[in-house]
């Protein structure tokens, strides 16, 4: 009997270890923000149905990439599912760090969102599934356009004319953009850059920023800057949206995440007055920049099968509809066409049209560094310390050096 009592703690310990070990687990790295909130809710629901011990590692945008890359390169297998911004994909997929998907995604996903989940881009194996269908929209004050007899801006010249007219007649800025160095400046510039026919790399993969098209597009950006609030060279998304919300600017490029705020009376002085259009055209048809959030499985994950089950479940139409209700733009056509959602979100038709043609940032593992160099010179040109031509030439030299170092 005594011997039996002595064995009890050992038995309890073994039972506890056995209990913990036998219960399946799943660790997910997510972005701390609206995109991550929806995924967190979905993951909790999935874990409850599947008796899975769930661990969510929620990280701010600035830290998420570095944590994920460190985990992937050191192959620690700390995460079973990772959430990533689509420009990170080429870097994270390198050296077999991500597990290829064993099932093909269905055709309901929008092609632009699926293409960025493949390596090589558009043609290769699938390593991720798209969870959030973000692409830029052109926000403009419909009430003011109507008041001054202006049609929805179809070209960048229309934008400039409207900025002049509204800026002169109203106590507000005609246009607002962000030109803080790095991601901010590049993100707002890319639709203009592409519309003028410029590209970051030529067909052979060499940097091609010192071209007439590139110079013209930057000159046009500076022209738009004349109708932007002073200090826009330090603006990020917050400042741009603050101007729209406070009714102190008439137009901007912005992301769907801000749509809800524009129609929220507690935050906006322009409720119901802002309309959402496609990117204006110039020498080429205007296209938006894609900013999709993807879900992928690290190759070193010890729970790959479970992670894959979650991945496919979380991106089913029913789940993406729930995510849309929580504020995430979907990545499936059927969800965009859902009548209940269309009745609730007036911007859905514009979002779908934008996503269908959206372009991703150039697919290179060095995009973070390239974007930083490009954005630095864009910001300096906007601040007036270098000419547009000099900014583009210097950016091209910097990018060429980055590409060379990366070889």
């Amino acid at each position, binding site marked *: 009997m005594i011997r039996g009592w002595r064995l009890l703690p050992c038995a309890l310990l073994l039972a506890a270890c056995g209990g913990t070990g036998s219960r399946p687990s799943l660790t997910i790295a997510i972005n701390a923000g609206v995109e991550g909130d929806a995924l967190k809710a979905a993951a909790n629901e999935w874990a409850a149905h599947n008796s899975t011990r769930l661990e969510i590692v929620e990280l701010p945008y600035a830290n998420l*990439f570095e944590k994920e890359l460190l985990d992937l390169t050191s192959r620690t297998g700390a995460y079973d599912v990772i959430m990533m911004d689509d420009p990170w994909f080429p870097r994270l997929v390198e050296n077999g760090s991500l597990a290829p998907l064993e099932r093909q995604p269905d055709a309901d996903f929008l092609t632009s969102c699926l293409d960025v989940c493949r390596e090589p881009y558009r043609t290769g194996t699938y390593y991720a599934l798209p969870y959030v269908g973000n692409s830029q929209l052109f926000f403009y004050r419909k009430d003011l356009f109507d008041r001054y007899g202006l049609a929805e801006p179809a070209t960048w010249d229309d934008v400039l004319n409207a900025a002049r007219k509204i800026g002169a007649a109203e106590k507000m800025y005609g246009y607002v953009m962000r030109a803080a160095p790095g991601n901010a400046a590049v993100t707002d510039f890319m639709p203009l850059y592409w519309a003028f026919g410029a590209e970051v790399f030529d067909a052979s993969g060499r940097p091609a920023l010192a071209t007439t098209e590139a110079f013209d597009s930057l000159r046009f950006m500076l022209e738009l800057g004349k109708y932007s609030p*002073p200090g826009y060279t*330090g603006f990020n998304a917050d400042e741009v949206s603050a101007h729209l919300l406070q009714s102190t600017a008439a137009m901007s490029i912005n992301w769907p995440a801000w749509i809800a705020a524009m129609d929220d009376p507690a935050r906006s002085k322009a409720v119901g007055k802002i309309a959402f259009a496609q990117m204006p055209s110039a020498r080429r048809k205007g296209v938006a920049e894609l900013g999709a959030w993807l879900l992928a499985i690290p190759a070193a994950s010890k729970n790959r099968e479970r992670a894959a089950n979650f991945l496919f479940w979380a991106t089913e139409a029913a789940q993406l509809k729930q995510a849309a209700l929580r504020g995430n733009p979907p990545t499936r056509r059927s969800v965009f066409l859902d009548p209940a959602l269309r009745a609730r979100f007036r911007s859905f038709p514009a979002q779908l049209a934008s996503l269908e043609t959206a372009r991703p940032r150039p697919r290179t593992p060095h995009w973070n560094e390239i974007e930083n160099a490009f954005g630095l010179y864009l910001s300096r040109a906007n601040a007036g310390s270098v000419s547009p031509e000099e900014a583009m030439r210097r950016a091209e030299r910097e990018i060429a050096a980055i590409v060379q170092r990366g070889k």
Partner: protein
Amino acid sequence: MTRSLQRTWPGVPWVAPAIALLLALSIYPLLYAIQVSFTGRAGEFTFSHYVRLTQDKLFLQALGQTLLYTAVALAIEFVLGFALALLVDSLPRGRGFFRAGLLAPMLLPPVVVAVIWRLIYNPQFGVLNGTLRAMGFNPDALTWTSGESSAMASVILVDIWEWTPFLFLLLSAGLQAIPQEPLEAARMDGASSWQIFRDILLPLLKPVILLAILLRAMDLMRIFDQIFILTQGGPGFATETISLYIYRTAFRFFNFGYAAAMSFLGLALTIVFARWLMRLMKVER
């Protein structure tokens, strides 16, 4: 076993955990970082990161801006901190109240300070331009952190606001520790306030002054959080410092070798400066 070893040996187990901790947390990472700074992308031994340091114009600009930031902020913080310390020290009463009040900015986390000032500096919605507007001025040209020419001055102003109290605190403590006898003797001999300050206070305070400058300068040379939140190094490259540049290189571009090489150059500069100041302190003793 020699006598000294015999004497030392019994103490070894007691200090061993601390030494092991120091080796694991300080010495090993330092040696590893040195190794990384000499390692290329393919894992080969290379001097290329150090060669690149001499050719990287952006790094040299960031280094120059860091030194400018350090020199200007340190000079103003020192003058203001010293003036405040002398002023509060001369008050007949209420010294404790003023000391507590003046220390408030320093007690706030730098990140909170930066967020507050980012809101204050906002050209359209910030309280600074809002106040000027309410007073009838047109502050549209005052873009503070968004202007290439005003950004550096704006971020330095935030540092001065937050860290002048640190110098005030050290110098105030130094003033209180000065014996009163030489001061009273000088007054009896008819010395002017300026003569007392120059010939008695300043020499007696010199060790504290040098220590305060050393601590603050080392902190200023690695400035990161305030600038990261206020300007992210912009507009353009106007407020980029070496800490920011190193952070981006390491954690945005994942070039740890080059980031380590830059860190060691920064460390070397700080050591040279610190040793120069410490030598001055020794000379004074």
